[in-house]
């Protein structure tokens, strides 16, 4: 959070630069003008105009959802995806679960079948975007500074820098964090949570918000199962306990186990979006 006014975006960088303020996002350091009806400058007093009486305390019913603004911006993103038949996925997980490796392998497998673009979210560095570009896909890096998640406004700003082609697959890699990104809709078709077998099978119970918000779970690094104490069946059971509708794939992005099922699911999802 910036120390000028408390806005969250002071350290936000997109491809290393401060984003331009756009109509779709809240301007930095924005504060609406304070009503000056009670401020009278001495040299401007018109003797015929009395200062307005101070208003008594009153109660206002608002019922205003805290995430309404983000949800509106996410809906605008979603409309853009629909207009261009773009399939957007929001990938969320703890740091180190293998998200970027999964993206690299996915891009290498599908890049000749469809246009793929990536939005990378990290607090600092362009390292992930460089890996994605090396794999053959255009990538925009969002650095959130101290921010712990992406929001719909950041994604809208990043999209302005990507020449999104019709029928693209847009993969949004969120900041590695199993808590905060759960609440912020980015306009994606599906939220995909990645859980790696080195993390502990009780993660879904410990971080239920994320597993409830997700539509798909990828259990990654399954090639390590013979070497570690991790009960994959129990992890999946816990995840389904939180979210019975969760679709689960067991994979190893590094070794390729289970990847054909994930890639086929992506192909059929993109085909549905193109046909819609």
């Amino acid at each position, binding site marked *: 959070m910036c120390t000028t006014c408390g806005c969250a975006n002071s350290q936000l960088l997109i491809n290393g630069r401060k984003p331009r303020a756009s109509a779709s996002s809240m301007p930095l350091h924005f504060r*609406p003008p304070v009503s000056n009806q009670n401020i009278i400058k001495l040299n401007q007093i018109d003797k015929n105009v009395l200062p307005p009486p101070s208003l008594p305390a009153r109660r206002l019913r*608002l019922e205003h959802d805290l995430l309404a603004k983000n949800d509106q911006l996410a809906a605008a993103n979603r409309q853009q995806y629909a207009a261009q038949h773009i399939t957007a996925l929001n990938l969320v997980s703890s740091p180190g679960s293998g998200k970027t490796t999964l993206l690299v392998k996915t891009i290498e497998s599908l890049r000749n079948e469809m246009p793929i673009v990536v939005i990378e979210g990290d607090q600092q560095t362009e390292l992930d975007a460089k890996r994605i570009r090396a794999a053959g896909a255009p990538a925009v890096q969002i650095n959130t500074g101290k921010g712990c998640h992406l929001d719909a406004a950041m994604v809208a700003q990043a999209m302005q820098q990507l020449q999104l082609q019709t029928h693209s697959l847009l993969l949004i890699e969120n900041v590695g964090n199993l808590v905060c990104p759960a609440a912020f809709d980015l306009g994606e078709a599906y939220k995909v949570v990645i859980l790696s077998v080195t993390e502990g099978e009780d993660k879904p119970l410990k971080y239920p918000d994320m597993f409830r918000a997700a539509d798909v779970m990828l259990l990654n690094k399954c090639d390590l199962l013979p070497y570690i104490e991790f009960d994959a069946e129990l992890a999946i059971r816990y995840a389904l306990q939180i979210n*019975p509708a969760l679709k689960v794939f067991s994979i190893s992005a590094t070794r390729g186990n289970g990847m054909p099922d994930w890639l086929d699911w992506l192909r059929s999802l993109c085909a549905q979006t193109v046909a819609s």
Partner: protein
Amino acid sequence: MHEMSLMENVRQIIEDAAAEQQFSRVKTIWLELGELSCAEPEAMRFCFDVVMQHSIAQQARLEIVRTPGSGWCANCSRTVTISALYEPCPACGNHAINITGGDAMRVRELEVE
């Protein structure tokens, strides 16, 4: 900590309301946080003091209203009360509870002048 972003949204909601409804000071904020929502009341309180500095709500009192979690148990065909997302139905032990209430986060009401 996403509570910081959420509290910044509270400030924005208040400032938008001030511009529309002509008030210059907020005395009390009633903030609804459902028991199944993704925000921690204590973390929200911590962020409140920081975020509201130099705003029209700097001196405001924060009242957090907790609403109980509820869900529909398809097994029992009735609404049940739960206090956490992973809790099973208290009657039958079924885990497939469809959350129907207690996950809201909203500014309910303001006392202003």
